């Protein structure tokens, strides 16, 4: 049994993301939807594992906007719903998030958004999603550990149900991926069927919409009152005499607590869990007595700026410290808090972190970049594209998926990366305004998510970047979630397998080729040929993710034929090692070798070796 289904009263170690699922189960959730994106991915992975046992519905939707709409549909029909994604997912969902605030909901709806300060698993930007709460007029709570993930989700459902408005839960990577102890409460069996009762509010049409807008602000005023009293905003060392106070949100609370411990000091702290609307009265009361307040929040100075406004009213001389003591970019940590508190209180930390740093910064070691796995079909596609375009002036359009690793040497096939599906959109713009050739690389899941409008645009507006859909038959990067191209749903049911080549043809692309990228020579030949065409063309490079394929083979007991390099035939030309760059291939004492523990037997190296030196391992 999955830990999130264990019985009431048990104390278990849960990942923040798992705790969010437990919180939803204890609130009677009946419907959940997402598009996978790390650091939110394990919420979906957990729902997929337990949905059937818990008797609820869960789906991977084609993108975050669709996921949000699905969850809103459920909530309007009286079924409690949860929708979740990473920070960029909210950007995609946004257009439907805003009207959901106006319509409100019939049953509780929670939108979880997982930010990623320091971009541990995100390209694109280091976005802070908290300002969305304000512009969308939706309340937001911010838990900072697994127990709070459960408690805050439950509170969000309670308030969402009461105020008939969707609630945001915002986490950051360190909360999503923290394991800490949770005391389990009671699971409430969620309703999965309701009824859509028609209501003028749902029509979101003027002039009625101005009325709902006004009512929305009334709701927010009421929520401000709730925010002021609720126990998810709390004090530590409240009555200690001090010139300095600390106001902190999210995971930084932990850094504050440990840093005070390191410095052996006690400073009054207000920890804010209700991020929007902020508890103004509570803050005003707290800041009245201090000379300085240190505001500790990662990324944007949202609370800090708000406190500056409040201070004008109640304590105009108050110094509000925040950015400047802390950086705008990257995440915070205990060391930053030790330094900031040391500066503001004059207390010194007994361990000399600066001397320590000086010592270790002298050590230089080679970086370990993440790499495409051995046998990864994307490697074959990139290799073929590089060979096919040798000496040509080509722009390689990048996109979001494992293939983003093509940005590193030796492939360098991701010249730009914006967002899901942007390889086509930007590729089109570049093609229209330059004389360069353009290849747009995007994955299968990305194609379904946001690649289709871009392809229609290419055909409609008569442009011709070569689009290569790297169809590895799954959403790989975020942890192997099924997608519309696989014929499988999140709950493990068979469904219609949607074919990318058929879609491309229906969109008016006349030349669509489906090729196994491991057929290297055919790939090279086709890319060369299609790059010369003046009409749009698409290659669907179709081959299952090797991790998945190997897992299936192991399960079925299928033996894999691996390869080795014959040192008598090898001339050390470097084609396999330096151009294909498979992690199984290495050089030891001047001899090229294949690590049998890593080799998956894909045989791409066998095809490209000009000396035919790579042979099956003899038993």
């Amino acid at each position, binding site marked *: 049994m999955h830990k999130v289904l264990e019985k009431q009263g048990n104390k278990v170690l849960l990942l923040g993301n798992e705790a969010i699922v437990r919180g939803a189960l204890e609130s009677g959730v009946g419907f959940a939807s997402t598009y996978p994106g790390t650091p939110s991915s394990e919420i979906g992975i957990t729902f997929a594992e337990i949905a059937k046992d818990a008797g609820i519905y869960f789906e991977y939707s084609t993108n975050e906007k669709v996921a949000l709409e699905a969850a809103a549909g459920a909530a309007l029909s009286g079924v409690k719903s949860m929708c979740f994604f990473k920070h960029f997912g909210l950007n995609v969902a946004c257009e439907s998030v805003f009207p959901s605030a106006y319509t409100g909901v019939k049953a509780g709806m929670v939108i979880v958004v997982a930010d990623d300060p320091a971009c541990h698993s995100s390209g694109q930007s280091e976005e802070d999603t908290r300002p969305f709460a304000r512009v969308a007029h939706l309340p937001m709570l911010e838990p900072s550990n697994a127990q709070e993930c459960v408690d805050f989700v439950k509170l969000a459902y309670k308030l969402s149900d009461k105020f008939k408005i969707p609630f945001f839960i915002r986490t950051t990577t360190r909360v999503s991926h923290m394991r800490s102890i949770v005391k389990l409460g009671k699971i409430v069996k969620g309703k999965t069927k309701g009824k859509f009762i028609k209501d003028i509010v749902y029509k979101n049409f003027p002039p009625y919409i101005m009325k709902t807008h006004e009512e929305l602000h009334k709701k927010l005023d009421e929520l401000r009152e709730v925010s002021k009293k609720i126990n998810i905003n709390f004090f530590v060392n409240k009555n200690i005499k001090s010139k300095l106070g600390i106001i902190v949100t999210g995971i930084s609370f932990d*850094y504050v607590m440990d840093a005070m411990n390191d410095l052996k000091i006690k400073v009054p702290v207000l920890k804010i869990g209700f991020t929007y609307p902020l508890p103004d009265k509570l803050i005003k009361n707290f800041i009245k007595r201090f000379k300085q307040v240190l505001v500790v929040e990662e990324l944007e100075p949202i609370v800090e700026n708000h406190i500056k406004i409040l201070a004008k009213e109640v304590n105009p001389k108050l110094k509000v410290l925040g950015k400047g003591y802390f950086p705008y970019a990257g995440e915070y*940590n205990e060391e930053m808090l030790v330094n900031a508190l040391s500066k503001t209180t004059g207390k010194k930390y007994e361990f000399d972190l600066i001397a320590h740093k000086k010592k270790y910064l002298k050590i230089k070691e*080679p970086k370990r970049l*993440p790499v495409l796995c051995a046998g990864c079909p994307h490697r074959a596609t990139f290799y073929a594209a590089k060979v096919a375009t040798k000496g040509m002036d080509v722009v390689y359009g990048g996109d979001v998926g*494992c293939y983003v690793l093509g940005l590193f040497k030796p492939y360098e096939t991701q010249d730009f990366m914006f967002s899901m599906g942007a390889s086509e959109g930007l590729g089109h713009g570049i093609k229209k305004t330059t004389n360069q050739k353009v290849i747009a690389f995007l994955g299968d899941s990305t194609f379904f998510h946001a690649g289709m409008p871009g392809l229609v645009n290419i055909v409609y507006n008569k442009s011709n970047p070569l689009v290569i859909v790297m169809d590895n038959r799954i959403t790989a990067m975020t942890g192997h979630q099924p997608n519309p191209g696989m014929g499988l749903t999140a709950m493990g049911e068979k469904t219609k397998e949607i074919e990318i080549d058929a879609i491309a043809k229906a969109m008016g692309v006349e030349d669509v080729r489906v090729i196994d990228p491991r057929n290297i020579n055919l790939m090279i030949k086709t890319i060369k040929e299609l790059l010369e065409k003046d009409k749009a063309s698409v290659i669907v490079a179709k081959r299952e993710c090797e991790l998945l394929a190997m897992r299936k083979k192991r399960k079925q007991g299928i033996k894999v034929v691996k390869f080795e390099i014959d040192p008598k035939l090898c001339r050390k030309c470097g084609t396999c090692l330096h151009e294909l760059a498979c992690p199984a291939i290495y050089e030891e004492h001047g001899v090229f070798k294949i690590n049998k523990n890593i080799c998956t037997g894909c045989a791409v190296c066998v095809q490209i070796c000009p000396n035919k030196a790579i042979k099956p391992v003899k038993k």
Partner: protein
Amino acid sequence: MKEFNVIVTGVGGQGAMTLGMIIAESALKQGYDVRTTELHGLAQRGGSIPLHIRFGEKLYTPLVLEGEANLIIALEPLEALRTTYFGSKKHKTVFLIDNYKLLPITVSVLGEKYPAMENIINHIKPFAGEIIILNASDIVIKETGSDITSNIFILGYAAGNELIPLKEKFILKAIEEIVPQKYVELNKKIFELGIKHK
């Protein structure tokens, strides 16, 4: 014991995550407060995987502060070097390193040098109470034909030599819960092998 800080590190796919989860679960069973942090997603594809596991009376941040690690388990020597700064003389940090080199692409393809083992040790020395080099992967490959259980062997060694304040019975219970059913017996056997290793 107020707190005990462990860093587990390795290359994506080596089982660092599983090892970290077993340590955390054992600590919970032994009655400690536990906090861990880990990274998921793209970084796992052959990248560096440092995990932080903290247990003790009452904990806040899941991340270990520089210099505050009591034990660093590295499933790969270069990864040990990368986490050096968590160690210190102050805490007499024990570095437990599997002598099992996995070349990063920067070395195998881009021509950088993988540091010699004695250089790695020399770099770590100023940050360590003790450095222990094991041939865990070689031993388990000999025993099982695969390197996949090296993480459990090292945990066995750490438990057997009292490098980690966790009781054997709790670790075994955690292994039973976390390792897939059909590999439990094998992992228990390798754990015992680690305990006995001198």
